[in-house]
């Protein structure tokens, strides 16, 4: 087994740590008096963090010259999907008591949920097509499709911005991080063209 595989073995459980932490707190009644909301928020925030981490892999590769980092990208992206799905489930189960109709109402009435749902749909599509087999099957289209990850991230930040009541500090920080990642990305494109 090579070193990357070893590190991946460590990163995998590390990525489950936020979930374990939330579960333990939930079991210990330690999520505060409004655990449904705390859990939904926690999972949503981790979905966004993993999404940004997966986007940071390519720039990190270029900056450090460590090409093997690319092997973490898919795993981090799938964790973003994983946390986003749990985020939706937590909302539906604990905040809506499985009232699907209310979710449907949200999906046509509330713009922050609409953009969240678009973001999640993209993550699902990317997750489904993330296997080696799909990569081969889709060929060039695969790259085009997976560029949508930037759209998913932008939508997730908009989702966060639009649900905030008055203190925009957190979504602004995430938005700034995303903007940096997008800028790095854009520079790579323009360098590419010059050469």
């Amino acid at each position, binding site marked *: 087994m090579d070193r990357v595989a070893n590190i991946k073995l460590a990163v995998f459980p590390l990525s489950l740590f936020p979930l374990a932490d939330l579960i333990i707190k*939930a079991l210990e*009644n330690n*999520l*505060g*008096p*409004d*655990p*449904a*909301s705390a*859990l939904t928020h926690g999972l949503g925030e981790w979905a966004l963090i993993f999404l940004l981490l997966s986007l940071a892999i390519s720039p990190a590769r270029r900056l450090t010259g460590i090409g093997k980092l690319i092997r973490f990208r898919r795993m981090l992206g799938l964790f973003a999907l994983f946390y986003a799905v749990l985020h939706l489930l937590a909302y539906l189960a*604990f*905040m809506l*008591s499985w009232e699907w109709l*209310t979710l449907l*109402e*949200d999906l046509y*009435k*509330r713009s*922050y949920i609409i953009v969240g749902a678009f973001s999640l749909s993209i993550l699902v599509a990317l997750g489904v097509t993330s296997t080696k087999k799909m990569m081969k099957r889709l060929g060039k289209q695969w790259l085009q499709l997976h560029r949508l990850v930037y759209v998913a991230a932008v939508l997730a930040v908009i989702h966060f911005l*639009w*649900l905030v*009541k*008055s*203190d*925009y*500090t957190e979504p*602004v920080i995430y938005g700034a991080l995303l903007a940096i990642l997008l800028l790095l990305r854009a520079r790579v494109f323009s360098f590419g063209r010059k050469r």
Partner: protein
Amino acid sequence: MLLKIKKHSDIGSSEITPEHIYHDRRRFMQQSGRFALAGLGLMLAGCSQEGEAKAISKQPQDGVIPSQPGPEWLKKQVLAFNPDVYTTTEALTPHQVVTSYNNFYEFGTGKGDPLRNAHSLKTDPWSVVVEGEVAKPGRYHLEDILKPHGMEERIYRLRCVEAWSMVIPWIGIPLANILKQFEPTSKARFVEFTTLHDPEQMPGQKASFGSLDWPYVEGLRIDEAMNPLTLMATGLYGDILPNQNGAPFRLVVPWKYGFKSIKSIVKIRLTEQQPKTTWETSAPQEYGFYANVNPAVDHPRWSQKHERRLPGTLLAPNRIETQPFNGYGEEVADLYKGMDLTRFY
């Protein structure tokens, strides 16, 4: 004179646990009685209370309620409250939750921030400016505003616009009694309230990415202000208000969303014009001047049909239906007769 009501505003008995209530009420009465007797000798009461609380049961409600530091004159007046003036049969939200889960953005926007940061607020001495359409304007010591009045305990539901709710035993004075003392003129159609503005004491007022303008301003129509349910609270759970709950002097309007119940008030102005309130100014399509609890009118970003009665657990989130006017329709619905409440939200 006032309402000794237990009937209409009580929600169906299916959601309540009589035993809790019994324990709660009993402990509560004993405590308040003892407080009243003990007067300034609070140390003693504090000790025996602790022993008793441990003995009773494991209910979170029976946790120890620490004595709140504050000026003696205020403690003395608050602790002499008349209990049970207005109650509900619903279980009280535990003291620990009421005092640790707060929206008080002057101390930060996290629910735990007020408890963490509010110690920097100096509540004594405290003065309140009364101005506008009154015969007796001026800057008054809080002591002088409160002195002529008796304190009452009022157990009210509090419904936050974020779709959670609590049941809270306040102690205070009907706002009507306080306003009358300053003799509103015939032109007084609205009451405007302002919270202290002092970023040194209220670090949340320094926040850079916030959308609210300080100081916090709220308002009521004069008939809403004069309604017997409207309370100026100075106490909570048998003691004076903790800072994070809006010490030393705050509004409680139980049929409106929580943000109307402005905290740590330093100015009361009676006006002819409808005041511009803080949330309305920041997002007029989301927060109206009235902000009556209304399950039929959704906030644009979330449904108002249900609420989570805190504290909940994941398996028992206590999700209940929200009542029009937060269940106080019999007392206040008349105030809005003929008004389109979807327009005046």
